[in-house]
């Protein structure tokens, strides 16, 4: 637990003076994600500690280098949790990394994303200034909400120093349900289940089975029992295999994440059908998560095919793991949005030293 702000600011100013880019790292637990190639690093893991937490506020303010493990334990003591269930890749995973990469657990469609829980940040910009954007109250509409795009910016809009995040009461109980099902039928079934007004916090298809997770009070779960059975789902709440499945999905430890083929993350509108000849093609391993809105494809399919299909369906495809030479990791932006990205980036990091090269940014910017 230490405040490294002054030290971090100095490191950044030195790098700025030398014009040498910095790779921002927290617990270094997600090195497989897109990152910049800079050798010099700005390490956040020592900048840790919980700064303010009053359970009745349902808000926590903490330094970005705090580990998810410490944070989760702390919240658990007060029977609260983060709403977005960030995956934890190792005991060193930090909350800063979780916010910067905006990855969420299986409950995303029902519980909201990182952007929804983030209330404010203290951020170190590329020119060394420290800004407070947003706040630590649940409602605040003063000024532009520049803090929200920090979720998912991979550090390229500034180094996250402190974060204020909404918390929610811990799930009282969970129940797990499943049935064997071919992938071709899975999306329709998920849609059917989704229209039943159930306390869903997870709905996924993997390895020939549909898995459903409910979170609620004992009374409410009991009340769902009959409905779930009439949907031909069987109660797996006491099955350890099922618990393992959900934990592996949440923390991206399912065997699919360990394959060596390129791993794509495809994000689609809810209720989208299967893409042509992709999820169920031979040689492709697939998990459908978020009721079908997030799809993991371990495949050698062509990037253009994936991207054009995802785009026509109203979504996008990110090359998540095991990169391919010459293929952009993030789904390319339209030209006008690309322009706004560049300008926004220049505002927050004028000399382009914070994790440069992400989001189709040319690595070496013209002096102009």
């Amino acid at each position, binding site marked *: 637990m230490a405040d490294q702000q002054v030290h971090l600011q100095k490191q950044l100013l030195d790098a700025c003076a030398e014009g040498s880019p910095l790779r921002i790292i927290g617990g270094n637990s997600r090195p497989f994600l897109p990152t910049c190639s800079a050798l010099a690093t700005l390490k956040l893991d020592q900048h840790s500690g919980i700064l303010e937490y009053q359970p009745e506020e*349902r808000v926590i303010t903490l330094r970005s280098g705090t580990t998810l493990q410490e944070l989760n334990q702390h919240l658990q003591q007060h029977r609260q949790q983060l709403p977005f269930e960030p995956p934890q890749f190792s005991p060193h995973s930090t909350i800063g990394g979780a916010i910067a990469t*905006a990855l969420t657990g299986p409950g995303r469609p029902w519980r909201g994303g990182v952007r929804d829980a983030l209330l404010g940040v203290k951020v170190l910009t590329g020119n060394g200034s420290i800004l407070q954007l947003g706040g630590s109250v649940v409602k605040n509409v003063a*000024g*532009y909400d520049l803090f929200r795009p920090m979720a998912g910016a991979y550090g390229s809009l500034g180094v996250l120093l402190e974060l204020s995040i909404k918390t929610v009461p811990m799930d009282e109980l969970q129940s797990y349900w499943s049935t064997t099902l071919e992938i071709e039928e899975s999306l329709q079934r998920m849609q059917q289940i989704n229209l039943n007004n159930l306390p869903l916090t997870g709905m996924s298809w993997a390895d020939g089975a549909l898995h459903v997770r409910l979170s609620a009070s004992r009374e409410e779960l009991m009340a769902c029992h009959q409905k779930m059975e009439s949907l031909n789902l069987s109660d797996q709440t006491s099955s350890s295999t099922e618990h393992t499945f959900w934990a592996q999905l949440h923390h991206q430890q399912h065997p699919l994440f360990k394959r060596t083929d390129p791993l794509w993350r495809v994000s689609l509108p809810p209720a989208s059908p299967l893409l042509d000849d992709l999820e169920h093609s031979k040689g492709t391993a697939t998990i459908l998560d978020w009721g079908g809105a997030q799809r993991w494809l371990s495949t050698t399919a062509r990037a253009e095919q994936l991207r054009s299909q995802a785009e026509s369906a109203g979504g996008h495809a990110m090359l998540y793991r095991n990169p391919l030479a010459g293929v952009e990791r*993030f789904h390319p932006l339209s030209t006008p949005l690309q322009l706004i990205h560049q300008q926004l980036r220049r505002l927050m990091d004028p000399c382009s030293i914070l994790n440069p090269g992400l989001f189709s940014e040319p690595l070496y910017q013209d002096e102009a």
Partner: protein
Amino acid sequence: MNSEPRTALCNALSKIVASESLLTEPEELTPYECDGLTALREVPLAVVLPENLDQLRAIVALCNQMQVAVVTRGAGTGLSGGARPSKDALLIGLAKLNRILKINSDRKSITVEPGVTNLAISQAVSHLNLYYAPDPSSQIACTIGGNVAENAGGVHCIKYGLTVNNVLQVRMLTIDGELLTFGSESLDTTGYDLLSLVVGSEGLLGIVTEVTVRLLDRPPEVRLLLAAFDQIEVAGDAVGAILTAGITPAGLEMMDHRSIQAAEDFTHAGYPREAAAILLCELDGRSPESVAEQAIKSIEILKQCGATQVIEAKSEAHRNQLWAGRKGAFPAIGRISPDYYVMDGTIPRRHLGTVLQQIDQLSNEFGLEVANVFHAGDGNLHPLILYDANQPGELQKAEQMGTEILKHCIEAGGSITGEHGVGLEKLDAMCSQFNESELSLFHQLKQVFDPHNLLNPGKAIPTLHRCAELGAMHVHHGQLPHPELERF
């Protein structure tokens, strides 16, 4: 603007829209001279009411070409002067862009034009048992475009979030004529989350032309509790106790003694008149069992905290009656005072008691009465300062008192606005919440979208000059930013 360019502008506009959609005569312009913050008025250069996107695009292109400033207006219910016109700017009213474009029941989403009212969205999907959650009290009138621009909230935000948490996609026309799409119907998009930047930008970055929102299933079970307290601080503590116990009410609203009296006189809701404060606590859910369980727990907590009485609504009609008092509170106050000024600060919930006391003190100091009706569960205060605009100096006194209240909110770790926005009204207060670097960043951000400062100029973000003159620059850790610079 002198008359020549004005004539040229109006001539050009008359070629774009039908004559009844272009207002130029003084008597036609008067109804548009203010928004919901009626203390601030100015007659616009002209008013144009486009009927479709093509017309809107042509109007914006014209303004860009002639370098005429634009003020966008939805329904004009804003409470911070965001849609207040300016004599040099064209007012573009979007009320006629009010078509529902697409309902997608499988995806539980709906796409509408910006002039569709908030309530009309829920009405359009009520047959599907779906609704749009954010419900500002002005929902029969305010538009979704205005909601996006203000990041509007409502009674049910505590459980279902603000506008930003319920909007999936926004199309926005920039001043240089580009029609941009932010967000999508997927749960995330590639690149930066620009959608969240556009929500709440108060018409300064572009004109919202289309909005897609997510819809929720109507909760089948709803219960409403009313708890009375003989001390307002105790009611404040009860709010914290409910949230600490892990209960998330769908709404948790507070009214003080004066509001209770006014509401009772106006709506006969059946509130306990003698109470110092009441809490309205709505609980909802999927099953009768789960809601009953929450209700039992809540009643117990409210009593433990010192509620003198807890009433549960016995029927839907009774529930509506109890809500009617809260929903009619602003007009009810309007009957007991010639004028009132609505404030909108937020604070961490645990400071409710302290800040309400400070407001009481200010009320004594300034000699102006205050009524409090607010979103207690969100820590979002709405002190209504009662004054009489016909008494010289009272409006100024009310405004000064408002500024003092907001200072207390910031000191308590809160914000100068929870849902009504900055507009013209809270420009000075912005100088206390943000420092010079933060404000400069906001100005630079505006330039990215609107380099010639034509969209709603002069609103939402104060100039650094204004803040320096006010001498109220944010004092960060006891130090002024850039102490080496001379203050003007």
